[in-house]
């Protein structure tokens, strides 16, 4: 009983600190420090969340097999970003999250973002991309039972992720350009990003529809065969 309790508390701390405590600290910090510091605080919060995840990851025992599978999925997602106009990272993160657990989903999303940006340009946005794609994979893992059973729900989740991803990244664009939030600029950024948002939505839905079944069968098979 104590064991279960400890484990629960452990996982609560592991997920609670990066995903709840750090963002709330960020909001509090930007309110306390006043205007002009949103940028610094948001960047620091996102970076801290990633750092905590990385450090927590080393403390945990994950199986060697699961680790190598994560590396394979990251490589596939990373290589898939070279397809013109379409972007399969979200789909890969979601699939990994659903079949291999939320932590693996976070890992694949964030690492694929980090590595592919060595070809597509690093920037301060890398941190936010890592966090956004990581969280998409993470929540797919949390909702895995429902998403696995219900294909339309999965596709809706994919489309929603595309929109949310674009919205979150544009908040960051405006903060960076304007040193503070401005609704007019945010609207302009959203409008100018419509082609990208559409491309994200289309590619998420397309790749999830095309890849989910075959990938699911293969990952499930590997899981059953080797007992990961």
């Amino acid at each position, binding site marked *: 009983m104590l064991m279960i309790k400890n484990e629960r508390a452990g996982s609560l701390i592991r997920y609670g600190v990066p995903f709840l405590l750090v963002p709330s600290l960020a909001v509090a910090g930007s309110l306390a420090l006043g205007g002009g510091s949103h940028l610094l605080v948001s960047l620091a919060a996102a970076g801290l969340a990633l750092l905590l995840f990385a450090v927590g990851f080393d403390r945990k025992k994950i199986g060697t097999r699961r680790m190598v*599978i994560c590396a394979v999925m990251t490589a596939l997602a990373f290589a898939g970003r070279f397809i013109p106009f379409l972007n399969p990272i979200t789909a890969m993160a979601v699939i990994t999250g659903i079949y291999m657990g939320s932590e693996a989903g976070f890992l694949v999303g964030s690492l694929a973002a980090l590595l592919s940006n060595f070809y597509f340009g690093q920037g301060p946005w890398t941190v936010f991309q890592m966090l956004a794609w990581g969280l998409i994979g993470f929540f797919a893992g949390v909702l895995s039972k429902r998403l696995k059973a219900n294909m339309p729900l999965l596709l809706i989740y994919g489309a929603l992720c595309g929109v949310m991803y674009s919205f979150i990244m544009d908040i960051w664009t405006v903060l960076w350009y304007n040193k503070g939030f*401005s609704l007019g600029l945010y609207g302009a950024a959203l409008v100018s990003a419509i082609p990208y948002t559409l491309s994200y939505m289309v590619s998420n839905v397309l790749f999830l529809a095309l890849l989910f079944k075959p990938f699911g069968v*293969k990952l499930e098979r590997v899981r059953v065969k080797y007992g990961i």
Partner: protein
Amino acid sequence: MIRRIEDSNPIVTFFYFACTAGVTMFVPYPPLLVISLIGAVMYFYTVKGEHKGSFTIFAFILFLLLVIANPLVSHKGDTALLFINGRPITLESFYFGLNSAVMIIAALYWFRTLTFVLTSDKLIYLTSLLSKNLSLIISMSVRFVPLFTRQRRKIKETQRAMGLYNDDSLTHEIRSNIRIFSILITWALEGGITTADSMEARGFSLGRRTCFRNKRIDRGDVGLLVIMAGLLSVILICIVSGGFEYSFYPKTRIVSNGTKDILGLAAFCGLSLLPVILKAEVSLKWKYLQRRV
């Protein structure tokens, strides 16, 4: 011995870019941004890298767009230049857009240079300081990409030789490619399991692990770190004690607090020109040695 920034320990390289890009992004003081842009462009053109010309063209177009964007959206400021649809286009808002544009372009140049300089081995070194598992996963995925590309080609050739690859029409081609991709995934996952078992068999999960680190921190690295930390602290003291004052609205003005600002700017100048200075020193030494021979 002090080496160039890009040849030093990855910690030095990373710290350098964190300082320069960080100051550029968080201190929007116009003279400082101009220095940053000059330093970034000079460093960008001294390192090895591809597609430099096209990046500069891209940066220039982006710069123009960013300068135009702010006056069209924001109408704050006192000096109206002209009216469009009854809304003023102000000089202040134009200055603000110009300042933001310089900042963004300078930061883009710093980050692009970082991408050239921070190769995958350095990235693996840096992540191994954080988490050994993470750096292992990164090194594996970096290695998997060319492996998968090669395997994909092999599968395609085999399928073609077996008469299963059909590119008569677009739908056939897509179907054949999906088939190749599916084979590749199965192969990759099975190969991954084999790799994992092989690692286990060699005692991967037993006991403590160490990382392969082919770079050490030597005296030159410490020297560079001390220099950079010193320059950064001068800049930070200048910021904290109220230097670098500026405001754009309602009237653009840049306050100069005399020695404090000059010291801060000089420190940042040293910081952003550090790689170019180091490079010049190395090439001078090389010429000197050549002459002696």
